[in-house]
C-alpha cells in the first residue's frame, strides 16, 4: 500500500440542510473524513444518501436558498473553507479543488467550443493570454486522449460524444493542476466500455499530477478498482469509514453488508442476488434512532431509540452501529430476559 502522510482535506461534522415548504431536510448530517495527498476516497451510497450534496458542499456550490451549510468545518490545507469569502472561494474553485459531474451531456455549455471552455479556466486562474491559454487547452485535450485535439477544441459540445465530453470535463478540471479533484459519479451516464476508459484516465492523471481524488459513486465495483479509502453514506450520515480493501473482506455495518450481498459475485456460486428490503426513509421524516434500523435485520429496540456514534472498531475502520458497542450485549441480555418471561 502507498504511504499517505500529508493531509490535504479534512472534513469535520459537515451539516448541509435544505429548508423547503415541506420542512427541513438534513441532506448531509454530520459527515467527517480525511483526505491525504494523492489518495482516492470513495463515497458510496444510494441516490438521496447525500453523497452528491456532500461533494457540492465541499466547494460551497449548494444552491441557496433552499440549501445551507449549517455546521461543521472543511479544512483545506489547514484553512476552513467555510470561513473564506466568496472571492477566496472563487480562486480555489477550478484551481486548487475542481470538480467533474455526472452528466457530461449537459454539464458543458452548448454555445461555446470545448477549447474555449477549458481555456476559460486557464485564463482565469493562471493569468495567461488568450493564445497561450488556448494552446494549453489543446494540450489538455491531447492529455485526456482526445484524437486531433486542435480540431476538437474548436467544436461545440453537441458535436462531441458523451465519452468525449466527459474527457473535456476532465481536461477542464485538471487544467490548473488542482490538489483535489471531486468526481461526482463521473461514469454513471456513460456506456460500460467508456466507463472503464474514463476511470483509467482519472487514475493515470491522478498519478501524474499527484492529485487527491474524491470519487462519488453508487457502484462498489468502481470503488474496488480505484479507491484507497471508502466512506459509506446512508440517509445523510456516514455509516462506515474504512479502507477500500477492508470493505470487501471485512464489512462491518449491516447496510454495507447488504450492499455487498446485493453484488453479483464471480467467486461464489449464487442462486440469486439478495436485496435490502424496504426503502430509504424520507428526508423530511427521519426515524428517531438509526436511520437504517427500519430496514435492518439485526435491529433491536435501542436502534430505534438513539443514533449510534461513528466509532473506531479497528485501526482504520469506523462504523456507526449499535452492534459494535458495549450496549449491544446489554440489549441482548434484556431481550433474553423478555424471552424467558
Amino acid at each position, binding site marked *: 500500500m502507498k504511504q499517505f502522510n500529508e493531509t490535504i482535506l479534512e472534513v469535520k461534522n459537515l451539516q448541509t440542510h435544505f429548508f423547503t415548504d415541506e420542512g427541513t431536510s438534513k441532506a448531509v448530517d454530520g459527515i467527517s473524513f480525511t483526505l491525504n495527498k494523492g489518495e482516492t476516497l470513495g463515497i458510496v451510497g444510494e441516490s438521496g444518501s447525500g453523497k452528491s450534496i456532500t461533494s457540492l458542499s465541499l466547494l460551497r456550490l449548494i444552491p441557496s436558498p433552499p440549501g445551507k451549510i449549517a455546521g461543521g468545518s472543511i479544512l483545506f490545507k489547514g484553512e476552513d473553507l467555510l470561513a473564506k469569502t466568496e472571492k477566496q472561494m472563487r480562486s480555489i474553485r477550478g484551481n486548487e479543488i475542481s470538480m467533474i459531474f455526472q452528466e457530461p451531456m449537459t454539464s458543458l455549455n*452548448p454555445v461555446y467550443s470545448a477549447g474555449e471552455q477549458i481555456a476559460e479556466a486557464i485564463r482565469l486562474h493562471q493569468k495567461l493570454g488568450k493564445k497561450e491559454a488556448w494552446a494549453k487547452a489543446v494540450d489538455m485535450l491531447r492529455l485526456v486522449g482526445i484524437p486531433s485535439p486542435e480540431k476538437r477544441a474548436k467544436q461545440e459540445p453537441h458535436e462531441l460524444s458523451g465519452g468525449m465530453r466527459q474527457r473535456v470535463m476532465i481536461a477542464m478540471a485538471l487544467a490548473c493542476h488542482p490538489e483535489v479533484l471531486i468526481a461526482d459519479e463521473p461514469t454513471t451516464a456513460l456506456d460500460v466500455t467508456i466507463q472503464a476508459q474514463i476511470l483509467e484516465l482519472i487514475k493515470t492523471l491522478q498519478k501524474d499530477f499527484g492529485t487527491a481524488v474524491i470519487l462519488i459513486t453508487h457502484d462498489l465495483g468502481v470503488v474496488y478498482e480505484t479507491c484507497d479509502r471508502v466512506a459509506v453514506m446512508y440517509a445523510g450520515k456516514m455509516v462506515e469509514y474504512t479502507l477500500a480493501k477492508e470493505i470487501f473482506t471485512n464489512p462491518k455495518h449491516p447496510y454495507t453488508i447488504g450492499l455487498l450481498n446485493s453484488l453479483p459475485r464471480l467467486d461464489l456460486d449464487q442462486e440469486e442476488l439478495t436485496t435490502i428490503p424496504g426503502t430509504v426513509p424520507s428526508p423530511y421524516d427521519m426515524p428517531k434512532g438509526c436511520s437504517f434500523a427500519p430496514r435492518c435485520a439485526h435491529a433491536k429496540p435501542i436502534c430505534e431509540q438513539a443514533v449510534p456514534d461513528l466509532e473506531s472498531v479497528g485501526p482504520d475502520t469506523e462504523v456507526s452501529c449499535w452492534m459494535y458497542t458495549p450496549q449491544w450485549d446489554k440489549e441482548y441480555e434484556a431481550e433474553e430476559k423478555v424471552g424467558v418471561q
Partner: protein
Amino acid sequence: MFVFIVRRILQTIPVLLGVSLVVFLIMQMVPGDPATLLAGEGATKETIAMIRHQLGLDRPILYQYVDYVIHAVQGDFGQSLRSSRPVLDEIMVRLPITLELALASIFITVVLGMVAGIISATRQYSAADISIMIVALLGISLPSFWLGLMLIYFFSVNLQWFPVSGWGTISHMILPAITLGAGGAAIVARMTRSSMLEVVRQDYIRTAKAKGLKEHVIIYKHGLKNALIPVITVVGLQFGALLGGTVLTESVFAINGLGRLIVDAIRTRDLPMVQGGVLIASVIFVFMNLAVDILYRYFNKRIDLN
C-alpha cells in the same frame, strides 16, 4: 441547415395561398354586390351587369380566386373604390411609415424587454424584480390605445415634449413607438426572466461556478446567450401583434400609415383596399416568421441535437 431553409421557404407557399384564400372568402361574405355599389345609385341593370362582367364577378368563384391570386402575385390588387388608384400604389405610399413605426417599436420591445427581464432574473425577489414584474403585468393589461392617449396627455399636452400627432421626425416617433412596443416589452421581459431562471438551473452553470468564475461572468457569458434563444421566438410572435397593433397606434397618433389606411378603408367600405392592406401586412408577417424560424434554428441547433 440549407435543406431546412429550403423546406421552410416551400412551406410558406401554402400558408400564403391560404391567407389569400381567407381574405378572398371574407370579402365574398360581404352583403350586397360590389358591382351595384360601384355603379352608384340609379344605375341601370345593364350597367351593373357590364361592371359585373368587367370585374369578372359573373364567373365561377374558384375562377375568380385563381384570377385574384395571379393578379396579386404580379402586384395587382385592383383599384381603390374611393380614389380609383391602384391599391398597391396607395399601400406603397403608406407602408414605409408603418414599417418605420414597427421597427422603432420592436426596438423598444427587444431592448426594454430584455434589459428589464435580465435585471429581474438576476435579482429574483428583490424590490427591482417585483416592481419590474408588476409593471410588466400592467404592460400586458393596458390597452395600447389608452396608453397612447395618456402619453399624449402627459408628454404632449402638459409637458409639451413631443408633438401630439403626425410623423416625420424622431420626436414624432417616440410616443407611438412606446405605445406600440410597451405590450411586447412586457411579454419579452416576462419571457426573458423565466428563461434566465430556467437557464441558471442548468448543469453547465454549475460547471461554470465550479470553475471559479465570477457571478456576472456566469450570468452574462454562460447564461444570457442560452437564455435568449427561446426569447427569439417570442420576439417574432410579438412582431405580428405589433403589426396588427399599428392599426390602433396610427389611429391614436394620426399617423398616415398602412394601419390607418385599412381602418379608413373599412369605414368607407373600400373593400379592395382592405383586402390588399390585410394581405400585404400578412405577407410581411409570414416572411418575418420565416426569418425568425431560421434564426431560431440556427441558434438552437446545438440544443436540438442533444
